[in-house]
């Protein structure tokens, strides 16, 4: 029951790279494109998904032997939906402006494929504690990609990081212009593609055979 056993540690570290939910399993792409224009909402979104995945995993795993298989999806949805509502209310209470920016996407965490994927693939067949760690790990893996993409998009699209102007005014005076393409979801898709490209050139075993 320790987080430090090597098996549990793998649950935490695998989703960061070899089983990354976004770049390897290609799940949760829609929200990765939508909330990564600025770094701050991306971080909050990553944290929210992590919390929801971890606790839904925990709850479903605890109930896994009592859920009738035929209605398991609806049970999972109820648990996820209540978690999302909790997170949404917390965001509204403590970081109202970010909650405004994320708008509908917090509610849409319910439909985030990562969460349903982990519930089906892991929590339904494993004990609560490993399931919880698995949820945390996948949440971090998702957040990691979001943060990298949002960092690049905010830096080149708005010349800022976390809302602080980092591209100096002298650049703009010399003719530099923020890249409007970075603000668009198109570029987020390209960036996710580039991350996948870089990741696979380092981990050859991830390359699909055709």
């Amino acid at each position, binding site marked *: 029951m320790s987080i430090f056993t090597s098996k549990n540690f793998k649950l935490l570290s695998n989703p960061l790279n070899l089983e990354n939910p976004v770049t390897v399993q290609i799940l949760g792409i829609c929200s990765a494109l939508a909330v990564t224009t600025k770094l701050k909402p991306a971080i909050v979104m990553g944290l929210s998904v992590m919390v929801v995945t971890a606790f839904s995993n925990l709850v479903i795993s605890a109930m896994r032997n009592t859920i009738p298989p035929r209605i398991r999806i609806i049970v999972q949805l109820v648990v996820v939906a209540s978690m999302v509502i909790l997170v949404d209310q917390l965001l509204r209470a403590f970081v109202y402006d970010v909650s405004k920016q994320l708008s509908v996407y917090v509610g849409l965490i319910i439909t985030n494929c990562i969460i349903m994927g982990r519930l089906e693939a892991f929590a339904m067949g494993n004990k609560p504690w490993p399931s919880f760690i698995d949820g945390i790990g996948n949440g971090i893996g998702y957040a990691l990609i979001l943060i990298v993409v949002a960092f690049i998009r905010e830096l080149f699209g708005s010349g800022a990081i976390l809302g602080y102007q980092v591209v100096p005014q002298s650049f703009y005076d010399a*003719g530099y*212009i923020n*890249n*409007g*393409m*970075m603000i*668009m979801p*198109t570029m987020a898709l*390209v960036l996710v*593609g580039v991350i996948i*490209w870089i990741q696979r050139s380092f981990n050859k075993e991830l390359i699909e055979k055709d």
Partner: protein
Amino acid sequence: MKSLRKLIDNNKPHFQKGGKLAKFGSTFVAIEAFLFTPNHTSKTGVHIHDAIDLKRTMTVVILALVPALLFGSWNIGYQNGLAFGIERGIPENFMFGFLKILPLIIVSYGVGLGIEFISAQIRGHEVNEGFLVTGILIPLILPVNIPLWMVALAVAFAVIFGKEIFGGTGYNIMNVALVARAFLFFAYPSKMSGDAVWIYDLPTKVPVDGFSGATPLAQLAQGASSKMASFYDMFMGFIPGSIGETSTLAILIGAAILIFTGIASWKIMLSTVFGALAIGILCNLLAVNEYMALPPYYHLVMGGFAFGAVFMATDPVTAAHTEKGKWIYGFMIGAFAVTIRVFNPAYPEGMMLAILLMNIWSPLIDYFVIESHIKRRLKRAKLKANA
């Protein structure tokens, strides 16, 4: 010439397998093939050789682009003269414009070929001639005031994400030059649209009274069609616009070269014109606003329509491959281009988006054309079997 040949022959062993510089082998082969016609013949199997290889195809397209390039150079000088009330002769106008285009061409080729050579090196492929045409197309479809670093960025984006990630020349699904333009259009709209970008010096200096620099398309979109240039001026190209796109006449000379040599498909060009006319006539019949009341044939000489139809839509890699598919592909490009122009006020010009969209659809068109052929033949076979 002989000393050059000697230099290459002397250095050859270094670049061949086992030599010191073997990893730059493909660069060496490319330079040799560019300077001298290679004389190696295939050693195994039966090969059919066609005199018109990729290098010659590309050369012909560049020749076809020369009229547009020359006219574009002259037009930059002419428009600049109009804007600031400067009188210049034809050669001065030409030189003025040519010196403005030259840096764009150098940057485009430098960055694009650089990336081609590097990626060929990494993959161990031979460098091929795919970028020769793209490199000249890109400057021709840009406004003259575009900053050079933006051109470099766009070319890099287009070559890497439009072509190399799909496997290089011949595998790209979208026209590389148009990807570069689309990138600039969406990334830096302030430098790619508006009235000031088309005429050299206009953003910084004050023009003569009454000169706006707006293209005919922009004037139409703003509902100021009375200020628009005459059909003759637009056909000849005495209007502001992207460097190579203004003169329909110069483009038609290019089209004649392409069709005569059989490099580009006349079916695509013709059906693009038909598509534009069809939607143009339809709009003209309804004619609820000034834009829709425009005579349909005006669409053919405005903006990038002619240039796109002749040089972009006919790109043999990204166009439809089946003969029937070519008609559909071209028709839809023309139809979409005019639809976007007339009905979407955010995009005064629709040719770029129409071609990119149809580039993506062309495999689908080919698929259905082939499927329908298969079905028809199966039917015929069945009839025969029954009879």
